[in-house]
Each structure stands twice: as structure tokens, then as C-alpha cells.
């Protein structure tokens, strides 16, 4: 077991920079999720850590050992692949035993270790089967067993659940969480699925186009997105964004825009020192659909709007409301009697609102992407 530091990692494929100066510190025993859309460089980071790709710059340190120039064989990390990568011509037993046999362990040792790993994942009855005879979920377990059997310093998981059907994915997700709690091995987990990220990660690192956007606990990343990308990537439907300007009016911020004039709490950004700075002219107000409440039309402090569409999804009702010159998504009670065409006003708690500057960054002080990584790492470890 070990902590992992990724320092200023750069990886290029030809002229394309797949990973640009990414630094991450992962505490011993932590479960870190790399989250981002496809092509954001998350898998590349994992493959560089594993030694399947070379870094162009930057260092990878596992347990205090610089591993950039060590063969994958001797990095002592185990990887679980998206397609499981089971050796098709070997039985389940041989698949799990393979890393130990290479390490020249005695037959008894191998037998014991495989037995333990198989028991942990409920594979005892499948040991003589070939991978081709197993279901997707079973294959995934074999891949996990093969990874844990060597007691590696770290697990690297590359979208391990994406080939499973929805129900199995939820079940395996829980099992993975339990497995991690039991073994306590440092894990880097790559996914594009935000639900997986939110439910499994001690912390989430959000990436886009090779750049680290934000790192923090799931709550931090969700509640205080560092920028517009994180705000819209997380959450379904995503955070509503309304263009307008921010103005300091008598000890408080007000947000003004097309058909909208609402007070915000004082801490959306630090108060101006003299006058209203120009960069407050073009900001975006971010409001999550579940933070908007429906009130009767004309309510003070509300945003006037008209209901356009209803989308009942069973547990919730999603409304599309035309307001503030744009379309806003609102999550509300499925039993709501609202009809399309109805006029309403939208209310929200000012302290929940986020404001993003012209560069897309959250104007709040405490959400800068990298500084918080260093500050939070020890906290996550304890």
C-alpha cells in the first residue's frame, strides 16, 4: 500500500496534448475517481501510471519511489481493464494464478492465494471454467480477483463497469466499495459516469481536454463547481446558467439580467474594493434544477417564467421553464398540478447560487482547482 503523487504530468500523442500539466496527490488507501468525458485524458493518466505509456514530462511517485523509468512489471500496481482482458485460453484458476506463477511462488502458496481471492469474490465454483463460459459480471470478478491476488500497492481501474448492464453495474459498484473498504488499497478509478464517481470516490478529479478542472470530495465538486465545465458536466439535468451582471448594492450582491433581478448572498465572491469592476459585467449565474422552487407568479425575489414542457420520470418531475431569457430546468414534486403555459415564479436560496466569471471560473474564493488538492489530501487520508 502506498500513496501516489502525479507531478506536472504531460503526455502528448503526436501534436495533441492528451494530458497537460496535471498534478494529483492520492493518499494511502484513498479511492480517487478520475472523471471526465471521453478523450479528456483520464485513461491516459492511468496508463502512464501503469507504465503502458511513457510520460513526456512530469513524475509519478508511488510509495516514495519514482516509477517513471521502471518497467510496468516492477511497479507493483494491478490494473482492471474495461474489457476485463482475461486470458481466453486459461481457466479462471489459471487466470488468477498467472501473476503469482510468474513470480515463481510455490504451488501451495499459489493455491492458497487464489483460494482466498476467489472466496472474496464468490468465484469458488467457477475456477475450472474458461472466461468464454462466464457472464459479464463473472468475468469482471475474475479480473478483480486477478488484480487483488498479488496484493499490489495500488489498483488502477479503467472503466471497469462500463460493459455491464445497468442493474449489474449498481450491484458491482457496491461490491467494489466494500472490497475497497476491506482491503484499503489505494485506488485510481477512471470513469465517465458521474453516478459512479459520486458514489464511489473519496475524492473526484474532474478532467477536460487534458486539464485538471477540479479535485475534491463529491460534495465539494457538486456544490461548489470550480468552473462552468464542472458545473454542467455533473448533475443530470445539468446546472442552469443565466447570463447577466453582478452588482454590489449596499452590503450585498445583486444579479441582474434579462427579466431577472435577484439578490445573492455576500459570499458568492469577495466584495469590491472600489466601485464595480468591469469583469462583473458578463457573468453567469448557476442554479441547480433541484434548488429552484416553484412559487405563484409575481412573488418578490423570484424569477418570472412560463412552464413550457413537463417530463415526469417517476420519482421526479422535470419542468422546462422559460425565464430570464433562456430555458431553465427545474426539478419538482411529481404530483405537482402544473400545466404547460402556466405562469410561475422561480425561487431559490441565495446561498446555493454560484456565479461564474467571464473566464468561466467560479468567483468564489475557495474553489480554485489545484490549491485545494494539496489542502484536502491529508484530510481525505485520515
Amino acid at each position, binding site marked *: 500500500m502506498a500513496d501516489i*503523487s502525479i*507531478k*506536472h504530468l504531460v503526455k502528448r500523442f503526436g501534436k495533441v496534448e492528451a494530458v497537460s500539466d496535471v*498534478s494529483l*496527490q492520492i493518499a494511502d488507501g484513498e479511492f480517487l475517481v478520475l472523471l471526465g468525458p471521453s478523450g479528456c485524458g483520464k485513461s491516459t493518466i492511468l496508463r502512464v501510471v501503469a507504465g503502458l505509456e*511513457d510520460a513526456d*514530462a*512530469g*513524475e509519478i*511517485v508511488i510509495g516514495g519511489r*519514482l516509477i*517513471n*523509468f*521502471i*518497467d510496468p512489471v516492477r511497479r507493483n500496481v494491478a490494473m482492471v481493464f474495461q474489457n476485463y482482458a482475461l486470458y481466453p485460453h486459461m481457466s479462471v484458476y489459471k487466470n488468477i494464478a498467472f501473476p503469482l506463477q510468474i513470480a515463481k511462488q510455490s504451488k501451495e502458496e499459489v493455491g492458497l492465494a487464489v483460494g482466498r481471492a476467489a472466496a472474496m469474490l464468490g468465484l469458488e465454483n467457477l475456477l475450472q471454467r474458461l472466461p468464454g463460459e462466464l457472464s459479464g459480471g463473472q468475468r469482471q470478478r475474475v479480473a478483480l480477483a486477478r488484480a487483488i491476488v498479488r496484493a499490489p500497492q495500488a489498483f488502477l481501474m479503467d472503466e471497469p463497469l462500463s460493459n455491464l448492464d445497468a442493474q449489474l453495474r449498481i450491484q458491482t459498484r457496491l461490491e467494489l466499495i466494500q472490497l475497497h473498504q476491506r482491503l484499503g488499497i489505494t485506488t485510481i478509478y477512471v470513469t465517465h459516469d458521474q453516478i459512479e464517481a459520486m458514489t464511489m470516490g473519496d475524492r473526484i478529479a474532474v478532467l477536460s481536454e487534458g486539464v485538471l478542472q477540479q479535485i475534491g470530495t463529491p460534495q465539494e465538486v457538486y456544490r461548489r463547481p470550480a468552473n462552468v465545465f464542472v458545473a454542467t458536466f455533473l448533475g443530470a439535468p445539468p446546472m442552469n446558467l443565466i447570463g447577466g451582471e453582478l452588482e454590489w448594492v449596499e452590503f450585498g450582491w445583486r444579479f441582474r439580467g434579462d427579466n431577472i433581478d435577484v439578490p445573492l448572498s455576500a459570499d458568492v465572491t469577495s466584495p469590491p474594493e472600489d466601485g464595480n469592476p468591469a469583469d462583473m459585467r458578463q457573468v453567469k449565474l448557476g442554479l441547480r434544477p433541484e434548488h429552484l422552487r416553484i412559487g405563484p407568479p409575481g412573488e418578490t425575489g423570484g424569477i418570472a417564467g412560463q412552464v413550457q414542457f413537463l417530463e415526469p420520470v417517476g420519482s421526479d418531475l422535470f419542468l422546462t421553464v422559460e425565464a430570464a431569457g433562456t430555458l431553465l430546468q427545474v426539478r419538482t414534486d411529481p404530483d405537482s398540478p402544473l400545466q404547460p403555459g402556466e405562469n410561475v415564479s422561480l425561487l431559490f436560496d441565495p446561498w446555493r447560487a454560484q456565479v461564474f466569471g467571464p473566464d468561466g471560473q467560479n468567483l468564489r474564493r475557495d474553489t480554485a482547482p489545484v490549491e485545494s488538492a*494539496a489542502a484536502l*489530501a491529508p484530510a481525505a487520508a485520515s
Partner: protein
Amino acid sequence: MMSTVSAEKAWDELTLSEAEYRRAGARYRQRRSLRAYLFLLPYFIPFIAFLLVPALWSIWLSFNRGGILDPAKYVGLENWRSIASDTELTGAIQNTAVYAVEAILLVFTLAIVLALLLNRYRKGSNIFKLALYVPLLAPAVLVGLIWQFLTNFDFGFINLALDAMGFDRLNILGSGRLALLTIVLAEVWRGLGFWTLYFLASLQNVPEELLDAARVDGARGVQRFRRVTIPLLRPMLLFAVVIAIIANFQVFDTVYVLTQGGPYESTSTMVWFIWKRLFQFQETGQGYAAAVVLLAIILALTAISFRVLGARRKRRA
């Protein structure tokens, strides 16, 4: 307090200097490359010794004479001067070209027709595929033998058939044009199975959906073949043409067995010419130069095939 914080290294500070990093990286990659080269070594030793070196050597040899029985001697351009005016070589080139054009056109036409039929009528097609394949198993010697039998003046099938129909028997291998045609037919007979299976495999690579889409769009059979199948098969066709040119410009075995280049060199091909100069006449210099001519012709024809068949692919893309 402030001073202790700044004395401690930041967690993301790099430990290696740029130079150290570069050196360690180079060493690491070197070790990895070395392992890869070890995998390549067993192949590249014979590859260099028996393919690359001889290929380059053959060009050097074209300025030499001797070599087969005695050490080679440099003679400058003499070989090239001597073959430039050698009508036997020009004859051999001509024969080879006539042979190759006839053989490739005939075998491709027949193979494409048979492949289309096998692709359309799949029931029981396996037996036809197997039958067509059998001639491929025969070494050229046997192919030659079989065609000697078929064309024999006294008991050959062709002459017996002519006789039965009331025509005069023909001395087939004794007449220049017919002898070359016999070589064409013998090679077509031998290669037909291969090319049929090749085109059949190519046809089966054409996605069914595309043809269905074309059918829905109202394209008739011939149109579908011309507008959908042929363009999709272009890369396969290019490969086939290149391979067929390389193979057919080297025709030798059948000539050796059937006609020995005769009558009067009318079936002498390039490889036959080269072989005879090298190993029969001891005119090695001419053989060396002719071999380089053959190499140049094949390279030129390959380049032309790529131009003609490859260019449209680019335009379309």
C-alpha cells in the same frame, strides 16, 4: 512558522533535474527497444543476408561478368551495351508482356464471374470451391505434364477432339503462338481457383446493408455491381493487380517444363532468359543485367498500378 513551511518541499516539486530526467528516460526506452530488437533479430538476420544484400548485390553484379563458375570481374557498362542490342531479350520481354496481359485478363475475368456466381448461389458452393482449388496443389512440373498430355499430337485430348470433329490435328507446342497460348492456359488453369477464392472473399467483405440500400434506391444488379461493389473492392483489386503482375512477370516453371522456351525462343520469358544466360550459357553478365531490367519493370508496373487504381481512392476520400 513561515520559514519551516517554505523549507519543506512542496509535494508536487519534481525530484529530477531536466537533464537527469532525460537521461533516465532515454535509458529506460533503450532497454525496452533492445528487447524489441531481440524479437526482430532472428528474422532480420536472414532478411538482410538473403534478401536485402542479394537485392543490392544484383545491381552491382550487372556491371560484372563471371561469378557462377569463377569469381566475378568488373566490366563496366559492357553487359548493358550487350543486352541493349539483344533481340532475344527484347523478344523475351515482349513474350512476357503478351503472356502476362493475356493471363491476367483471362484469369481475372473468369475468376470474377465465378466469384459472383459463388457469392449469389451459395448452396453447394463448397464443392465447386474445392474442385477449383485442386490445380493449385500441383507443382508446375505436373501442370506442364498435364498440358503436354492435353496437347500431345498423337493422344492429346485437344487433338483427339479436333480429329473427331473432322479438323486437322495441330502441333500445338511446336508452333510459336499456340505454344505461348498453351502456357497462358496452363497458368490460368492453375491460378483460377486462387483468384476465384480471392475475389469471393473480397465480395463477401462488401457489407450486405450497402447493397440492400442500393437495391432500395432502385439500383439494378449491374448498376449495383458497378456503383457499389467495384468501388468498395478497389483496394482489393489494386492488391490483386500488383500481386498478379509480380507473379506473372516471373513465369518460368511452366516454360521450363512445357516448351523450354521454344520453338525458336517464341515462348522465352524474362526469367527463362535470365536462367539460361546464368546457368546454361555462362553468359552471366547478360543474365545479371536482365535481372535488373526485370526488377525495374516490376517496380514500374507496381507504381503505375498504384497510380491508376490508388488515385481514385484518394479522390473519393
